[in-house]
């Protein structure tokens, strides 16, 4: 069965479902008549704020959920909702109520802000792609035209901030033992996309302590002396719907990211149930409906953890929007959030960072968009301050960050050939400024397909033509994003699955029926050359360099005849001679279905210096295990396979394998287990984190 057949099958199967009586068109019609009758013609109910006056709803409504309160009847079907609660004429309730429907006029305070805080230097345009707004009105005009282009349902809001993450090189670091001893201990760090650009995660270690996000608390566990001992906890002041996202650690400082929702509840009266006589069964026995307005922001808390038992809050910054991602480069943290710019409300809403409206000189507009993409920089020595900030009015961009630039890219489907549009922003000393923008043919399908090296940016794309045929391209751009070299027509008919750049060479996997590993020499920027190609069965989704001459692939084995997947597969390539690529060993995990390491690089442990390959895998019998392998004498050798508890609370994506010195740990939000590596991964200790 292919995918299309499966989709058809799903459709057919669903057609067997019995549609509930209450949803039949005639029933619905009856309810519509009733709703229409009982509702006053003026459809703008007066809101009665029942929320605390302290709750300030400063910004546009991000999301609206209406639910029924005071429901008397236990009959679930008596559920009639009128959600027209934010029509343009709704009256803000009280001084603290939503002001979102006011026409925009720049308040005095805002002029003061800009006077007090002039931008460090005027922001440059990002080529033709993003231009600095001359004033807020230009921003609203973009929102307005986007709105008209694409009628936006007002309740739509919550963005998937956290869904787009990628991962890379596990860096093994020497560090001073946190306990002060001079001995050097090896410990694992988060698998990163770019060396030198740190990424937040939900589990980290500093060589002595293991830090784990466990629900609403960050737990600190001391591993000193081979024991697992609770050493402290950080519990930020969270509202009910807030949650801890991820964190960074840097020596004695811990940077905690929290998603915060500002909520107000308003209650309104719609109509009373007076329509009994018509013979229609009463569908709704209540006359009050509460609506829930949420406005999200991302908060960065900085803690001094010199004493883990007693963490001290050192600073806080807050940025509107849902968390998208963040990076830490040296002392600088870059925070990326997405804020819906409410289309019902596009005159008067500009998001804030640290309670300051983003000045128009820091706002980039493109042709259209109804989302704000906010970027700020924070110097960790001043954890209460925003050093610089920009906002792009644009929907859905991907982020690639190097030590000196932020690249934002997205696919543009408007032209005959799909384009990838790329904008480059320099981040010199935390100051964010546009360099240029460009576009190349095709789409970037793998996080690692884009890579900056010296003064160039290399991009691998896959292009689908009108007939669904594919072609792959490699582009080399200079520091101003001018095209200097290209290689077209690679692996026609296939798609790029995984890529890795090593200095002046790129290795990538394309796949259709077999898995060719390509190697391309990039040493001549204007003339990249395919050096070699190796076809094997299956395909790799994640690549990781294993020393200088070897490349580890994690993916699937497939049947070369029909493409059927036969389980997860590890493969080690010999890349010492690019003209003669070889497979040293491969191993298929029996009955395995999926590993989060394939698509979330932070879930993969690949450390050639300690000879450790670790990842969680799910199996067809519904079990899951964390597996550790080593690669010795040209063979993958199983070291550990620890069954993971099937828990509805824990996704296997949140499991990490880490090591400190000779001890290996499997860490998840509910527990930590330790193993003695030198002694055949003998189980040592277990600590429950749920207490």
């Amino acid at each position: 069965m292919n995918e299309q057949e499966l989709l058809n099958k799903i459709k057919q199967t669903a057609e067997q479902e019995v549609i509930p009586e209450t949803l039949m068109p005639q029933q619905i019609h009856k309810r519509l008549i009733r709703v229409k009758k009982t509702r006053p013609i003026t459809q703008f109910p007066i809101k009665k704020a029942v929320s605390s006056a302290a709750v300030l709803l400063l910004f546009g409504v991000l999301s609206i959920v209406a639910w029924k309160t005071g429901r008397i009847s236990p009959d679930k079907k008596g559920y009639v909702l009128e959600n027209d609660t934010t029509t343009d004429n709704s009256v803000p309730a009280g001084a603290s109520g939503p002001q979102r429907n006011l026409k925009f006029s720049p308040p005095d305070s805002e002029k003061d802000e800009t006077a007090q805080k002039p931008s460090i230097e005027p922001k440059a345009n990002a080529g033709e792609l993003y231009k600095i707004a001359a004033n807020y009105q230009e921003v609203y005009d973009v929102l307005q035209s986007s709105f008209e282009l694409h009628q936006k349902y007002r309740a739509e809001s919550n963005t998937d901030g956290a869904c787009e993450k990628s991962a890379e090189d596990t860096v093994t670091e020497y560090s001073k033992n946190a306990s002060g001893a001079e001995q050097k201990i090896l410990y694992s760090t988060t698998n990163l996309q770019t060396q030198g650009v740190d990424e937040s995660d939900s589990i980290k270690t500093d060589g002595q302590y293991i830090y784990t996000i466990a629900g609403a608390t960050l737990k600190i566990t001391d591993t000193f002396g081979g024991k697992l001992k609770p050493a402290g906890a950080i519990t930020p002041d969270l509202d009910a719907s807030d949650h801890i996202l991820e964190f960074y650690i840097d020596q004695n400082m811990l940077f905690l990211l929290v998603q915060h929702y500002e909520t107000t509840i308003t209650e309104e009266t719609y109509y009373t149930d007076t329509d009994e006589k018509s013979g229609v069964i009463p569908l709704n026995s209540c006359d009050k409906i509460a609506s829930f307005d949420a406005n999200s922001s991302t908060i960065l808390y900085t803690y001094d953890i010199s004493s883990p038992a007693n963490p001290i809050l050192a600073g806080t910054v807050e940025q509107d929007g849902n968390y998208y991602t963040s990076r830490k480069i040296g002392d600088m943290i870059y925070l990326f959030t997405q804020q819906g710019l409410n289309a019902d409300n596009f005159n008067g809403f500009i998001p804030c960072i640290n309670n300051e409206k983003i000045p128009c000189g820091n706002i980039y507009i493109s042709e259209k968009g109804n989302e704000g993409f906010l970027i700020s920089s924070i110097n960790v020595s001043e954890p209460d301050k925003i050093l610089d900030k920009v906002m792009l009015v644009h929907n859905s961009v991907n982020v690639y960050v190097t030590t000196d630039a932020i690249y934002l890219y997205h696919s543009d489907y408007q032209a005959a050939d799909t384009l990838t549009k790329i904008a480059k922003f320099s981040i010199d000393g935390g100051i964010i400024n546009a360099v240029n923008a460009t576009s190349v043919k095709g789409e970037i399908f793998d996080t690692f397909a884009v890579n900056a090296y010296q003064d160039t940016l290399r991009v691998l794309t896959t292009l689908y033509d009108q007939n669904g045929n594919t072609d792959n391209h490699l582009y080399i751009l200079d520091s101003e994003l001018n095209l200097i070299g290209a290689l077209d027509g690679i692996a026609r008919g296939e798609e790029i699955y995984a890529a890795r750049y090593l200095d002046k060479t790129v290795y990538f996997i394309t796949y259709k029926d077999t898995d060719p590993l390509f190697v391309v020499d990039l040493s001549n920027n204007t003339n990249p050359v395919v050096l070699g190609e190796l076809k094997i069965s299956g395909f790799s989704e994640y690549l990781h360099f294993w020393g200088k001459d070897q490349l580890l692939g994690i993916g699937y084995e497939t049947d070369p005849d029909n493409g059927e997947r036969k389980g997860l597969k590890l493969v080690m390539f010999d890349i010492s001679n690019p003209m003669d690529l070889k497979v040293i060993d491969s191993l298929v995990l029996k009955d395995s279905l999926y590993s989060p390491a394939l698509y979330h690089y932070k879930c993969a442990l690949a450390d050639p210096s300690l000879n450790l390959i670790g990842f969680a895998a799910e199996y067809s019998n519904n079990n899951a295990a964390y597996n550790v392998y080593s690669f010795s004498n040209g063979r993958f050798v199983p070291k550990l396979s620890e069954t993971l508890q099937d828990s509805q609370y824990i996704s296997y994506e949140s499991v990490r394998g880490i090591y400190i010195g000779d001890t290996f740990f499997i860490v998840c939000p509910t527990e930590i287990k330790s193993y003695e590596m030198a002694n055949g991964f003998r189980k040592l200790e277990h600590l429950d984190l749920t207490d």
Partner: protein
Amino acid sequence: MNQDLQQIKKAKSGDTGAFAELYRTIYADLYRFALYTLKNPADAEDAVSETVMDAFSSIRKLRSEDSFRPWIFKILSVKCKRRFLEYSSQPDELTADIPDGNSIHDLAEGIDLRTQFFRLKNEERLIISMHVFAGYSSREIAGILHMNANTVRSKESRALKKLLEQLSDSDRKER
């Protein structure tokens, strides 16, 4: 003139019959969408019910050149997504208690497919439902879910492959 456009025009002026007529063309798919996304018949019923009432009260905002179908499915998609958030804040898993379908024939295979489909993650079910029942393209899904279209495509493809694996596996067990 397109009949739909006429109905939309009437519905916008408050004609409940015209609205019901528009609804008639899509209600089954709305329910299937909600059931396959939310797994729970009562929740699906509620979600569709809310969607219809919302749509009726805001159809004035529907521009006639916009098609009714993608518009109302967008409302439903957002409602389903919001329910996921509510689910995630509830400790207990909502178990699907699904009554059997209409016909007794060919049910074994169908029930297995549904069972396996329900084992997919929330987001995976939502994306496939948006494709199968609402008829959205991956680009449209991307727009509604605030994702990259590539991500949508790869997530869907991955989910389908996972589903196929599960199906062939459960098939194997049966034999």
